């Protein structure tokens, strides 16, 4: 089931395009739209919902809209209660259109939904409103996790036929405390290990997205600034969507190293989809 948490904003309209396109890639081709309002429904909500419904109709996607008053527990909790738990449910939501402080995700309903991990969540930041949810060129940074691209596959399946070019990037992080650059032999070993990992990810992606034809490319780099490399790679390959797994960092790690996801959201030149599967 694909659920779209719509807040009735202009930013929400941009995210809606992704939700509709994602729904068109699901087997049941249905989009369930939820709007939870705190005090009153958003301005011109009916008009906006009607536009989303029109877009669904154009793509042959079934559409249902539900308006719910917010409970005392809050919008995020209400949405969690409304969505069936488990990996069969994916909820699409949006990050902030404007940063609060330096954060686009922290403190938002979407952040709480991602943290809940009761169902799959995709939180989107849109900086390419003109592509209307059809990114075409997608960047998938990977971090060497033993699970490979397993967590990202559901999101890539949602992108579906809109995926024209997938670039897998593995940034091997060089220690900031390292006093000297690794020698050539050590560097080649690190890069070779990275390439082997990336080859596995590519095979998984190709197998999982088999019906769709898309170009696949990959790169492995050694760098101290992982986020910087992601941004450079996105610009270099004219990427329209960067897919990031939700951070598993602990509080001390976040204090020391900051949040790479927030930095990508802040400095990105492409739309960003932050995803997390159900636990």
């Amino acid at each position, binding site marked *: 089931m694909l659920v779209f948490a719509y807040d009735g904003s202009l930013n929400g309209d941009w995210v809606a395009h992704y939700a509709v396109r994602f729904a068109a890639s699901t087997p049941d081709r249905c989009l369930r739209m939820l709007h939870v309002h705190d005090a009153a429904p958003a301005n011109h909500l009916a008009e906006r919902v009607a536009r989303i419904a029109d877009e669904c109709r154009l793509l042959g996607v079934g559409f249902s809209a539900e308006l719910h008053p917010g409970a005392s527990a809050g919008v995020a909790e209400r949405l969690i209660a409304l969505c069936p738990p488990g990996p069969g449910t994916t909820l699409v939501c949006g990050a902030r259109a404007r940063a609060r402080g330096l954060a686009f995700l922290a403190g938002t309903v979407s952040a709480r939904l991602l943290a809940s991990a009761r169902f799959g969540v995709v939180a989107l930041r*849109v900086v390419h409103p003109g*592509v209307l949810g059809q990114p075409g060129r997608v960047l998938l940074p990977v971090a060497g996790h033993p699970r490979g691209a397993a967590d990202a596959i559901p999101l890539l399946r949602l992108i579906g036929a809109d995926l024209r070019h997938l670039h897998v990037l593995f940034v091997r992080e060089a220690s900031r405390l390292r006093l000297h650059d690794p020698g050539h032999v050590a560097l080649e070993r690190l890069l070779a290990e990275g390439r082997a990992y990336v080859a596995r990810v590519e095979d998984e992606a190709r197998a999982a997205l088999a019906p769709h034809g898309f170009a696949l490319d990959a790169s492995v780099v050694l760098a101290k600034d992982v986020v910087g490399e992601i941004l450079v790679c996105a610009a270099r390959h004219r990427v329209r969507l960067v897919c990031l797994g939700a951070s598993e960092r602990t509080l001390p790690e976040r204090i020391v190293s900051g949040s790479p996801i927030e930095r990508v959201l802040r400095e990105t030149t492409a739309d960003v989809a932050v995803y997390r599967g159900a636990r």
Partner: protein
Amino acid sequence: MDRQIHNLEVAETLSLLRSRTEGLHPEEAAARLVEIGPNTLTRPPRLSWLRLLGKQFANLFSLLLDVSAVLCFVADRMSPGEGMGVLGWALASVALINAIFTFAQEMRAERAMDALRRMLPQRITARRAGLEVEVLTEELVPGDVLVLSEGDRIPADARLVESHDLLANNAPLTGESRNVSLTADRVVAGALTDSPNLVFAGCSLLRGSGAAVVYATGRRTELGKIASLSVNVRRPPTPLEREVTRTVRVLTAVALVMGVAFFAYGLAVGRPLWVNVVFMLGIIVANVPEGLLPTLTLALAMGGLRLARKNVLVKSLNAVEALGSVEVICTDKTGTLTRNELAVTGVVDAVSGEAHAGEARRALLEAAVVASEIHEQAGALTGDPLDVACAVALRRLGGDPLALSRDVVRRLAFDVERRRAAGVVARGGERRFSIKGAWEVVRPHVTLPEEALARADAVVRRLASDGLRVIAVASREVAASEVDAAEVVLEDRLELHGLICLSDPLRDEVPAAVARCKEAGIRVVLVTGDHPDTARAIAALAGIVPVDAGEEAVITGARLEAMREHEIVAQLDRGAAVFARTTPEQKLKIVGAFKRMGLVVAMTGDGVNDAPALRAADVGVAMGAGGTDVAREAAQIVLLDDNFASIVAGVEEGRTVFANMRKFTSYVLASNVPEMIPFLVYVVLPVPLGLTVLQILSVDLGSDLLPAIALGQEPPDGEAMARRPRGFGGRLLDTRLLLRSYLFLGLVEAAFAMTVFFLVLWSGGWRYGLPISATDPLYRSATTATLVSVIFAQIGNLVGRRYEARSGLDRGLFTNRLILVGVALEIAFAIAAMYWPPLWRALGTGPLPSWAVALAAAGAPLLFLVDLARKRASRPRIPSPPR
């Protein structure tokens, strides 16, 4: 089904943006402004300059100087009157000067942003509630309807809803010099950024009027993304930056280790704590080359000035040296290797290859002009060089290209992906669609039998292999109802007129420049959007590939598109040197492949869509004459004359700068040893301290500074381009340099200086083991002898460092007058230290007897000759270059 903003009908676009042709209501606009934010480009964080300045004080070098300064102030409190306070201020000043130098360089990123912000207008006319009002562009929001007219700069990305003969210049974004005819119609296929029904922030309107509904503002515009990238993404450190960081780390580590070691030793042998602190500071100060960083910066700055005289503008000081480490140059063809003076040299029948004459020739050229975009300015034809060349050729036949151009009712602008331009002309009741472009693009649409097409293929290959640019021209009559039909309808069943051959001569100096690159071990690779055979022919003429190079020497964009990075690396390993029919995105792949091979890459470019490749390369080289502002901002080097040969001159200068850096690093490091040995001897043996800390600083920041700068200004010695490029592996500070500076030159200087020191003491009646007061005139004379000996020895070192293997006198002292000034200043300083009372008080020096002065002065020839003997012993004799 593609449904991006440019694929939608006008009504659908307005509905999607919840707007109307009358525009938004003011309240709607205000609400959206609060939600989305102002239409401004990314700004650097507030007080970023303060953070940047603070960063300069946080590196290891500065921290060491700062901590040492603090210790000096504390030591001055504990034991006043020993000059530790003065030393503390001196160290703090050095840290500040170093920080300011590097800070000034890093602030240039701010200036790059200013160029982008200037591309946006401040006000624009928009429709609000049906009225046309002037609004601040900062207040534009998605859904606003812009009223556009000739001369307007576009403030945001927008979808056209009305278009009347609109013509836009999208060069700031696309780099294409061709102007784009705009339409409000939906576009069925093609990339968003190439769509003729969109206008983009930063671009300008040359003609016509219309209206457009905004869909992206601020950092969500295409321009905003470029701006965001330029602010947030730092270029990776250049080879020199890496080397300087490494050098500073190594020297700082040596200083710290030695200082702490002798502090511990002093404690172990029972010396008082603060005495040990003073010695530790002395050793640290002796080891840290305080003047090195400003000298490096000055050498780069002077190198930049010399490059500017050779038409190479350097936007970043580190790029001066980065050029010198380049191992691969990826160059454009048109305008860089060639003169960009396109001229029609032939109009031929495609099937027979015979020259057209008479009516056929005229008809072909007229069709070509219909598919062109030309204007008249100050009596001359302007536009894309290819279009102008066709128009000039038509004029020579007596035709009127401008009049013909005015009869064109529809234009389909040049498509960089599809490599063709087209137009529809209405004349004398007849309408005709014409297309001109690459043969392989036109070929599928012409009505010729296969046999004729095969013969045409052969003709095209033959002409291209002669180095000519070959353009196919075709046309057909169209009905009035077809004029606005989709391109795919118009491009069907065309009549092939023939081929236009254009020549763009190679620049005279290019073959010699390419040969110099090869001698210097630099690989030259041609990356062009042109035909493969033309590219191969030009590459052969330039000397990039052998004259008999076959098709396998060329990799086309189509092949490149399908290749993975490691496959491209494999091709490059096999010697691929020509890439044809490439797009700007494929340039990035080529850069990425070379970087994966660990090579230092320079890439040339002129358009905005070259900007990512220019940033990704280790050295981005933009064209100054024909390039766009954004390409120039993305690059580190700008060729003011767009000439490939200037890149080679820049490489030579860059190599010279690096070689000079090694020279003055070696020069400066050599004096560390005679500064440190007196402390070590003093700690271990019962003898007086041979050189005070203030005297050490007077050498490092005084007498050594100008000579070091002078070494940084040595002109190219003719050997720079005879060596292989140093690439990423080349070291500023390598084992050989360290051994030579510390264990040879430094030890010789130290032994000589300490000998003179003890001789002066001995001659004054001091004996081994006897204490002597720091204020004793004999002691002051003795330390002066050490100081002056070091200074004179450094003169010999200065001359010797001018050449790696030859005598430093081989090229003559007058080839670099700054060397002479440096020597004169060193001598003057030495004299002042001996005979000028104010300096006696400041440095604790005193007069020397004349025999001691003569002995100290012998240090100059001594060190020079000893060093020359070492050079002769370690290498075969190299003949001196002709004067």
